[in-house]
């Protein structure tokens, strides 16, 4: 279960537990948690902190009206529930649960767009802070263009593995690259690598193709 060696730092897990993390970053944490028992246990302890703090609050009494309204509605609630439950148990094991809201069936059926010879990408959504949530697919042995970006970039490996200047990363591994980090991930030769990537600001590719792409990318953020 504990395959990953690269974990979100404590500050991110704490914000996730407290509910103050932007949802795009929470997606990355959630995808990592599916592969990491030790972060899962840490999260349970962090949740207990919130729980105990809530227990120690001075209670703010609820009105009898509020209680009675809710009690009156209970029977009608039961009927609405059934279809929701059946949808939640969709059997698709390889895709992290938090991403199934964007991916109906398989990774390969997504509308991938070619970014370079080695990379395809597909945008899943935007966060309310403007962050872009996308999947990147690097072909076996392929290299992702060295790029700099204006905000932090959060990455979780979903399939395959890659290496960059700082080491080898496998399924479930989580990493954050700051604005000044340049890195060149290279997928291992045995299979393609699929990553979840959340980028806070517009990406500036520094390669040749990327210069061609840049005006387009900038416009898509306008």
């Amino acid at each position, binding site marked *: *279960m504990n395959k990953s060696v690269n974990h979100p730092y*404590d*500050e991110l897990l*704490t*914000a996730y*537990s*407290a*509910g*103050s*993390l932007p*949802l*795009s970053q*929470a*997606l990355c944490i*959630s995808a990592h*948690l599916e592969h990491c*028992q*030790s972060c*899962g*246990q*840490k999260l*349970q*302890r*962090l*949740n*207990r*902190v*919130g*729980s*105990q*703090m*809530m*227990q*120690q*609050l*001075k*209670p*703010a009494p*609820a*009105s009898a009206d*509020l*209680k009675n*309204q*809710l*009690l009156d*509605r*209970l029977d009608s*609630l*039961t009927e609405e529930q059934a279809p929701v439950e059946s949808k*939640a148990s969709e059997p698709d094991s390889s895709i992290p*649960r*938090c991403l*199934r*809201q964007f991916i109906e069936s398989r990774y390969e059926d997504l509308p991938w767009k070619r970014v370079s010879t080695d990379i395809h990408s597909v945008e899943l*959504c*935007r*966060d*309310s802070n*403007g962050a872009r*949530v996308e999947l990147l697919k690097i072909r076996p042995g392929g290299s992702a263009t060295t790029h700099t970006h204006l905000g932090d970039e959060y990455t979780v490996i979903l399939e395959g593995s890659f290496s960059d200047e700082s080491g080898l990363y496998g399924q479930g591994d989580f990493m954050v690259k700051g604005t000044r980090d340049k890195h060149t991930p290279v997928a291992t030769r045995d299979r393609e690598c699929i990553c979840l990537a959340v980028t806070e600001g517009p990406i500036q590719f520094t390669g040749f193709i990327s210069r061609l792409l840049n005006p387009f990318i900038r416009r898509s953020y306008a």
Partner: protein
Amino acid sequence: MPGMTKRKDSGEKLAQMSLCITDVAENRDKAAFARLFDHYAPLIRAYSLAREPAADLVADELVQEVMTRVWLKAASYNPRLANLNTWIFTLARNCRIDYLRRNSRYATEIDPTDIFNDMEDEGPGPFQLAQQSRVEENIRAGLKQLPREQSEILTKVYLEGKSHQQASDELKLPLGTVKSRVRLALKKLEVLVTR
């Protein structure tokens, strides 16, 4: 010792409430649900008011959302994974995230429901189970002994739902100070140790 009585009280309350949730799950017992409401609704309101003081309607709406989920999801609550207080906290937190998302100036399509599925994680082994009550007690007692400057920031983070940056702005403290106080507090509560 007054501390001991308090611990016994909170333990007994939790045990009573756990019986109620079982009754709701197995028998759809409305009287048991009403007892859960009596205990948790005022805490959920207090949690909401911590973030938005005087916003009573928002607090009532959060109570409705959370208690509705308690009724609907009682059967999926698994006491082996989280004690009832922690489950209620995560429900309240999730409902608040969803409320903020729906009322945000900038929309996002990201649905938080599938992100925070705390209950569906793989359960802890027997060893962890034995540790859980000790962890719980460390946190409960530890929170009361934190220096004011640390508990103040934990309140911002956990109850008011502020980011470290927002806490730093509001308290007029450097971001680094906020981060280190959160870390120190969580270390004292023995939350960050890797077992």
